[in-house]
């Protein structure tokens, strides 16, 4: 399993792919950083980075489907899926190895953005506790998105379609939150609580405020697990009905 993980990581880092995406991620972060610096008023004592994540989800999440789009689509297209599926590795381990490698790339991208808070801490004060919490929350949310993106890549078998569908679904999850905020939904408390239960953005709010709730943590982990299992089943299913 480790060889597959290593090979996947190499395919990211031995090509411009990971570097271009990391640069894009940092670019978005720096724009957000500049605009929040600009809107600071004189009463601010500590600079709070979580807002950067919170205000720019739309752009951050855009990157994840690009990271995951090739994971299974390219294997299917190049005929290398045969190699993986006839190796002694089980499908579960194959999916897990690929998932972990993409997660590693995502972690590296996030670590790169630490440059901004560290730089800020030299010239001012940073709320590290809430920042760490926000990073953790964003990492967990990214984890779910990566699992979803991989599932799409495996279902569609086409990298471009997987990426576009991924964008739609991930922006859709943001839209759920928008709908949850309307007066219509607020009129029905049950519907509202259902939406806030599945809305990942609302769960992230707690992380960005520096609150670590076990409930949210479990939610992200279990959502990831469910999607990964779905992926394993989807691959097995396709083998059975292969044509």
């Amino acid at each position, binding site marked *: 399993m480790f060889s597959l993980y290593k090979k996947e990581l190499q395919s990211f880092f031995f*090509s411009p792919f990971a570097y271009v995406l990391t640069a894009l991620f940092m670019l978005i972060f720096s724009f957000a950083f500049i605009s929040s610096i600009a809107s600071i008023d004189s009463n601010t004592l500590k600079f709070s980075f979580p807002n950067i994540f919170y205000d720019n989800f739309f752009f951050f999440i855009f990157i994840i489907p690009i990271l995951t789009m090739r994971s299974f689509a390219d294997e299917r297209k190049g005929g290398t899926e045969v*190699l993986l599926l006839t190796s002694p590795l089980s499908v579960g381990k194959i999916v897990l190895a690929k998932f972990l490698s993409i997660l590693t790339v995502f972690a590296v991208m996030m670590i790169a953005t630490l440059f901004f808070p560290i730089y800020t801490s030299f010239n001012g004060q940073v709320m590290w506790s809430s920042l760490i919490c926000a990073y953790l929350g964003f990492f967990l949310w990214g984890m779910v998105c990566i699992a979803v993106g991989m599932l799409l890549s495996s279902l569609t078998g086409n990298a471009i379609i997987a990426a576009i569908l991924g964008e739609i679904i991930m922006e859709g999850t943001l839209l759920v939150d928008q709908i949850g905020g309307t007066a219509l939904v607020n009129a029905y408390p049950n519907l509202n609580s259902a939406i806030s239960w599945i809305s990942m953005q609302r769960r992230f709010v707690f992380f960005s405020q520096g609150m670590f709730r076990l409930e949210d943590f479990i939610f992200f982990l279990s959502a990831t697990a469910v999607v990964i299992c779905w992926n394993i089943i989807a691959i097995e299913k396709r083998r059975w009905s292969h*044509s």
Partner: protein
Amino acid sequence: MVEIKNLSKYYGRNPAVKGIDFEIRDNEILGFLGPNGAGKSTTMNIIAGYLPSTGGTVTVNGFDITEQASEAKKCIGYLPEIPPVYPDMRVEEYLNFVAGLKGVPRAERKKQVEDSMEKLHITDMRRRLIRNLSKGYKQRVGFAQALLGNPKILILDEPTVGLDPSQVMEVRNLILELGKDHSVIFSSHILAEVSAVCERVVIINKGEIMAIDTIENLEKNMTADTVLNLTADGDKDKIIRLLKDIRGVNAVSEVKEISENRNLYQIELKEEAVRNEIMSVLLNNQCSIVEMNLAKLNLEQVFMKIIQEKKKSSLEELIEETNNSNPYDEEV
């Protein structure tokens, strides 16, 4: 070593393989022969554990390929029709990766990769990106990959496609070499290749096994009624008439013009002794014999004949079913 029992595979409602049985013995090279779309690749994919079967079992070295997949897959080296290579990797890097994937211990990895590269003569290419290799070299990298992990069973799906003639010879020799201590099943639609390398062949068509036998037996069985190739000078019609009048001649089946006034006839005889009479009859009628020899059907003809006979028998069944009294004409 590998036992295939009542194996069937349906793609939706379309049968690809219909209940086939055969086995691959220890250290034998088994040829898997059939026209395109016969179910060769499907069967090999199932044996290698890539596709699950619809029915039946495949046992590899005592392990069931679906129940004990991991153990079974460790005994198999598989080269699919399209070599499963990553275009963005270098040859050595790729082979190292596959060795790791197959669970080769780290200490042995380097040696195994070197050995397999040497066997396939790709050591010079170790630093090259696979994307820049020619089709023949990609095929060899795919082959080298199948040898990693020292599997006891090698499944090779058309291993010589895309290679030039000298490379084909090399690969054939390699298969013969590997056959000494591996069980090899290898598919092809080129019959010469199969007869050059294999001891036994399985002939498959439309998902059904047509024949399983050694090459000698297949050739022998197919020439049960003696066939004589005769090249003679003289009027074509006259010779055919003369030949047909001889007692013991079943049919004069094929005539090919070689040059003006010289033709090749294929004569089916009841027994070999009729030869003498043919000779004397022709000589008495001023027809000179240029060449005469007993025909031995080659594998290609055996193959065509088997497929034709199956077609014929299924046609006969159809005719019987519809109560039509007109029997199928014997002459093909």
